[in-house]
């Protein structure tokens, strides 16, 4: 709604987060259009310090780290977003189904959700990552997505099952509307702001998860992501060699993206939540 958007813009937390995020996104989208070089090309010696040619020096393969960083941020954000979409959509569908339909379906889905909450998702993430043969960034993102939906599902379920008993839903029913229509028009709008926040959080945690499993060497092959940059830096002992540039910029980028998403979420929370509560 226009109103809440207006208020969002007034929230310094949200604006700070959104600002950082948009600037980073713009940078990584625009830079590769100006500099069309292949980020995988090995153009220098290993671990060259930053210089006027290599703004962030070179990595162990002699690649231009700044260029890699641009692509790495892109991949990380993409993985985060895809993971976020998957987690949110799965969580939303399961939460809606279990909250709206109720009864046995609810019992079953709730139990499944609880089971997924209890079984540590990071371990499952690792196990699946190991067992999958061809790991592309898409596959990684999907794996992250399908291991991180339970919290969303739980929250959506709670809200849906209370919304289900709201009278406007009853009125819609009596008016003969179909179930999908009721869910879309009578229930979804109420949880929309929550879902957006959950999506932002899931995206942030997707980015973190990608970084973590890539750093364990279980990330996608043949791409550059921030996690993979750090992984190579560690495998080739960049810190031992004093090559901080192979490691710190990528770490900072992740922190910055995640931080910006967290800030956006906190900002939104402060705006949206009072409404949900009242």
């Amino acid at each position, binding site marked *: 709604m226009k109103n809440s958007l207006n208020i969002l813009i007034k929230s310094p937390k949200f604006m700070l987060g959104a600002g950082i995020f948009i600037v980073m996104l713009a940078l990584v989208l625009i830079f590769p259009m100006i500099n069309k070089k292949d980020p995988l*090309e090995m153009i220098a010696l290993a671990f060259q310090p930053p210089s006027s040619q290599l703004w962030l020096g070179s990595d162990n393969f002699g690649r231009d780290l700044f260029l890699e960083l641009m692509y790495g941020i892109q991949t990380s954000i993409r993985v985060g977003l895809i993971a976020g979409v998957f987690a949110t959509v799965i969580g939303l569908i399961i939460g809606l189904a279990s909250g709206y339909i109720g009864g046995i379906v609810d019992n079953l889905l709730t139990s499944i959700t609880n089971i997924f909450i209890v079984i540590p998702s990071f371990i499952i993430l690792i196990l699946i990552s190991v067992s999958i043969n*061809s790991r592309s960034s898409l596959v990684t993102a999907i794996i992250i997505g399908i291991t991180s939906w339970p919290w969303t599902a739980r929250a959506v379920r709670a809200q849906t099952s209370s919304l289900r008993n709201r009278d406007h839903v009853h009125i819609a029913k009596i008016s003969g509307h179909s179930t999908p229509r009721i869910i879309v028009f009578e229930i979804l709008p109420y949880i929309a702001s929550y879902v957006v926040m959950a999506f932002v959080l899931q995206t942030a945690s997707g980015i973190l998860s990608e970084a973590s499993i890539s750093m364990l*060497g279980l990330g996608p092959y043949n791409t550059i992501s921030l996690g993979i940059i750090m992984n190579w830096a*560690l495998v080739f*002992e960049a810190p*031992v060699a004093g090559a901080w540039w192979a490691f710190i910029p990528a770490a900072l980028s992740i922190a910055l993206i995640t931080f910006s998403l967290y800030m956006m979420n906190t900002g939104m929370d402060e705006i949206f939540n009072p409404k949900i509560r009242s």
Partner: protein
Amino acid sequence: AGCQTVQPPSATGTTTPPAQGETKPADQGEKATEPATTEPAANQPATSGDAKETPRNETLYINGIQWGPPSNFNLLSGNPAFPINYGNSRELVYETLFMINQLDGKLEPLLGTKYEWTDDMTLHIELNKDAKWSDGKPFTSDDVVYTYQLGKKYDINWSNYWAYIADVTADGPNAVKIMLNKDNPNRLTVLDSIELIPMMPKHIWEEIEKKSNNDLATIRKEVNANPVATGPYKIYFYNDQKITIVRDDNYWGKSLFGKLPAPKYITHVIYKDNAAGDLAFKSGQVDVSQQFIPQVWNMWKNGAPIKTYLKDAPYYVPGSMPSIFFNFSKKGLDNPDVRRAIAMSIDYKKISDLAMSGYSAAMQPSLTLNTDAESKYVDQAAIKSLQWTTDVKAANELLDSIGAKKGKDGIRVLNGTRLGPFEVECPYGWSDWNAALEIVAQSAKAIGIEIRTKFPEAPVWTNDLQTGKFDIIMNTPAGGVNPSQPWSRAHDIMYSKEVAPLGEMAFWNWGRYKNDKADQIIDKIPSSTDQAELKTLYTDLTKIWLTDIPSIPLMYRPWVFHTVNESVWKGFPVDGDGSNIPPQIAMDGAGIRALYQIHN
């Protein structure tokens, strides 16, 4: 049954509970009744004053040999821990008959004093009369025969020698005879056996065999925490983080070497990864490192007393030839010109520089290493014309000439087959290999062949390698320094007999290359004694290899790395110090002589 942790009694004499809580204290008593531990010193520090830690200046710290926690010290188990590991003629606890010297390929005496071929089929070995077991019993020919026979009786590491050996018999108490198998005489592997098989005490292991009803599965479970052996060291302490051995001051070899080894203790620290080990090494907590240290020159840039065997690049003595193997059933890769083009596209200099930190000398493709010990087998001039060098232009021309045209995406198509994407595979975390393959993939891009890297977990790679589930895969053919090189390397690359079909497990020739001529030559070499004939055979074989290109060596790699930090121990052997001690990390083969040379 076995006690898993050896506990040293604490200073006050009371037994402290082990930190890891693995030990069943009752086992201690059970052990004591065994003959193996009649000598109480076996698990006690010699100085009983302050046993909390081994004094730094009496302890040699090493890393990079043992990665997981130690599970047992039983040679028959298949995976004994440091310092027992089979396959590297390790001489610290168990000893072999002879020690190989990597520098000149010669076998130096240890438990054996002399070996000679009394006829074409018999190897006669004389044993050192002084040698005795750590429990005081003398070492005799019975022990040698027993040790060899174990391989016949059970499926263990040295069982395969019995494919070439007819029998091993005692020739008096201090000599043995090894008779070759008439159907399959292979002198080379038998020579391997005398420098690789660790000698085991008959009187101890007969008991264990009996106790286990001659069942290998039961024997394997024996932890053998206090091995009775002939070597200069005994197990002192071990847990998940380190293994410490202590010098046996009654070591028989005092007479052979003229003194005892310098370090009273040797501790192998088990690090979780290279980085942790390198950091510890850099800071002087480790004296000898067998780890791959990237850009090792950085280590001594600030004047730290760190050395490699060679002062300058390639710093280490090459010992193996990690290569990529092609799957001969993959369309596109079955074309020798495509393989040659790939071979010519690869930037070997870059691999050496970026992946190996320059530890690999210039690539001269051959079945032999470019060392004195091996290169003499091949007529270098004869193969010159077939050897490839990095030449992207020529590679492109070659591909053009066979009609492989570039598609819109820049990838060539040969007779309707797109050249790529091919996956090239090696285990994750083997960083120099990972980097080498990244460079291969980049190199191939320049000639219009798409190669993608894939770095799965080691067991997945092993599985893919053996069952042939790969396009291109990286592996080291027959690594190790032993008398049968370069024959065993050639065998692993090219020998097609007894190789299981795709889908089943093959233990060499993973790409299922087949050339009858090559098979014949490989069959012939081991029984040939004439040096000139050998040279022709090896040269012919190399020519076949250079033509068919079943594999492309990517780098020369040391079999073991040998980087030393001399802040505590000094006098490690280096190239040109005249000692002729090979850089075999001071514990393998003739490298053990370094232990007698170093000092505080």
